[in-house]
């Protein structure tokens, strides 16, 4: 039990409440989409699978294939070459160069992006242009990209989105710390959950219990999230400006390995052998590969590896491109192992939960789900407390709208994707329109319903209904593989995701709110049962 004065509790409760009411619904949006984004790759494969799964992130023979592709693109784009799996399990090869920027504008990457089947390495399509254009060109990743845009930037343009989500991460940090301090009996109450009660206590218990069990992780997710948004948007440019005196050259030198410049032509060594060697050397699995100065004597090959068994930090192995000889291993950040590099490197596995494949993703998904539940029940609790006050019905309906309308709209986006997608061609802004349409429709439903409670039920059923349709739409409208075909092509995620959506839909459709019986409402409440708000009111 944490002993704090009534005054302090009052202030903390106000902070906790304000961070929740003003930002709660947006925070819930970011947490819910983040939870789904844990399975970004699996959702990508499910939505638009390749015809056959690849044997590894970088399948054997990719090196030789890259050489034939390199011969087919503009030689200027051999400056920097990368090959990496895209969200849907296909491979992307990006041949590009940095175009000098005009005065006052940022330098842009320009090149040719080629989409490959992961098993046969057959070319599916290619497009040339700026990095922004080419990555938006293909529609195969549109669903995962939409989800990530909503999570990282709330669909806002440029830095605005990062500022917004940074602020939300900070609000979550503040809410988790203040929530921890104002909850007096964290350990004592950790197993106590009253459900058949219509009063504030049941809502409070639902919020507090989920909050208690997900507290350490909510803190970690909020901290790392704030780090990514604020760190990228303001922290890094500012610190780099101070540390290197605005000297971009020095900053880049520190981060990049030193290789003597030599622009004389030299053929590239066998990339497949380099991949085999990198795997043997580290015990990890190659995740992606980058070649700088392809075809020159100073070519450098970087192979990024998965973290070793039981480890958290991925690393990279560097090879000299012209000779194929091992150059050095490189830590996550910087040229030499360092405390700061490791610390910054830890942020990403801790936030994404992708450090150990499916087991860690399942756990992180559950933690995200619990955090979303905490955000939503917190809003519900706040509105319940003020049920008698005028105007709060609107907030209760708004909570119902985003709480259940957001999952419904996201499910509608997936349905829209299946109805609109044609192979790997782009979708432009259509998913955004579907999403906004979904939000508008669910808003009309929530504010038009008999009560906030009725709106909750209606929207939950709607979410379930759309989710139940998804496997069918995937199969019929988008001409995706059936279960037998998916399983025999190594695309088991297609089957698993279908199953998850069906089970999720059934849960939504069958969900019943626990009803309270009159005798239970009249149970005498001890002082210990009082909510923080009631205690503060008593003291005042």
């Amino acid at each position, binding site marked *: 039990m944490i002993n704090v004065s009534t005054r302090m509790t009052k202030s903390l409760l106000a902070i906790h409440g304000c961070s929740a009411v003003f930002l709660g619904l947006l925070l819930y949006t970011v947490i819910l989409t983040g939870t789904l984004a844990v399975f970004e790759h699996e959702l990508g494969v499910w939505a638009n699978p390749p015809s056959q799964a690849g044997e590894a992130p970088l399948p054997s023979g990719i090196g030789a294939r890259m050489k034939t592709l390199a011969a087919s693109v503009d030689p200027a784009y051999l400056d920097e070459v990368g090959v990496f799996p895209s969200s849907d399990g296909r491979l992307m090869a990006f041949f590009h160069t940095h175009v000098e920027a005009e005065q006052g504008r940022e330098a842009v990457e320009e090149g040719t992006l080629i989409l490959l089947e992961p098993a046969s390495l057959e070319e599916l399509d290619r497009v040339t242009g700026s990095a922004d254009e080419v990555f938006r060109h293909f529609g195969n990743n549109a669903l995962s990209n939409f989800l990530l845009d909503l999570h990282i930037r709330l669909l806002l343009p440029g830095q605005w989105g990062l500022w917004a989500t940074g602020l939300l991460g900070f609000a979550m940090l503040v809410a988790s710390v203040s929530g921890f301090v104002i909850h007096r009996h964290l350990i004592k109450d950790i197993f106590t959950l009253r459900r058949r009660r219509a009063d504030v206590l049941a809502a409070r218990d639902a919020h507090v219990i989920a909050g208690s069990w997900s507290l350490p992780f909510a803190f970690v997710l909020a901290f790392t999230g704030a780090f990514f948004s604020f760190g990228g948007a303001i922290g890094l440019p500012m610190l780099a400006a101070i*540390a290197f005196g605005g000297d971009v050259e020095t900053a880049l030198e520190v981060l990049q390995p030193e290789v003597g410049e030599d622009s004389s032509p030299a053929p590239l060594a066998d990339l497949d052998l380099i991949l085999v060697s990198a795997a043997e050397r580290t015990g990890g699995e190659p995740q992606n590969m980058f070649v700088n100065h392809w075809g020159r004597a100073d070519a450098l090959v970087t192979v990024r590896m998965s973290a070793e068994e039981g480890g958290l930090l991925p690393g990279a192995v560097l090879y000299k491109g012209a000779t194929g000889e091992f150059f050095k291993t490189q830590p996550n950040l910087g040229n030499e192992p*360092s405390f*700061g590099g490791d610390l910054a490197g830890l942020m990403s596995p801790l936030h994404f939960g992708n450090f150990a494949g499916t087991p860690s993703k399942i756990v992180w998904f559950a933690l995200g789900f619990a955090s979303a539940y905490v955000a939503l029940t917190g809003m519900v609790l706040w509105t319940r407390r003020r049920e008698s006050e005028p105007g709060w019905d609107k907030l209760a309906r708004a909570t119902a709208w985003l709480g259940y309308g957001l999952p419904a709209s996201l499910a509608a986006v997936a349905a829209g994707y299946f109805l609109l997608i044609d192979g790997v061609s782009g979708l432009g802004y259509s998913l955004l329109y579907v999403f906004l349409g979904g939000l508008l429709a669910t808003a009309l439903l929530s504010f038009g319903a008999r009560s906030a409670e009725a709106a909750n039920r209606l929207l939950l059923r709607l979410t379930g209904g759309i989710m139940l349709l998804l496997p069918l739409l995937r199969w019929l409208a988008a001409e995706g593989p059936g279960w037998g075909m998916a399983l025999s092509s190594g695309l088991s995620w297609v089957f698993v995701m279908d199953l998850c959506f069906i089970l999720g839909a059934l849960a939504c459709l069958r969900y019943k709110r626990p009803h309270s019986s009159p005798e239970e409402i009249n149970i005498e409440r001890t002082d210990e049962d009082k909510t923080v708000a009631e205690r503060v009111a008593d003291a005042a």
Partner: protein
Amino acid sequence: MGGLAVVIAPGPAMINNVAVPLVLFPGAWGVLFFYACLDQKLLRAYGVVAGLTLLNGGLIAWHFAQTADVLQAAA
């Protein structure tokens, strides 16, 4: 926060001075936020935050002045 980039040694990879304050920054702002909200004396809270801002600004200015000296000496 900017001042930390000056105070923390760059370390062998030359990035500790950037990476460490970058990671600490949500925490640093969080502590300041709670402090500012909970301090009973508003003036004192203003004072502490202003003092820290000045201290950071001073450290950065001192760092830039030193760098300028080194550059002048080299020229």
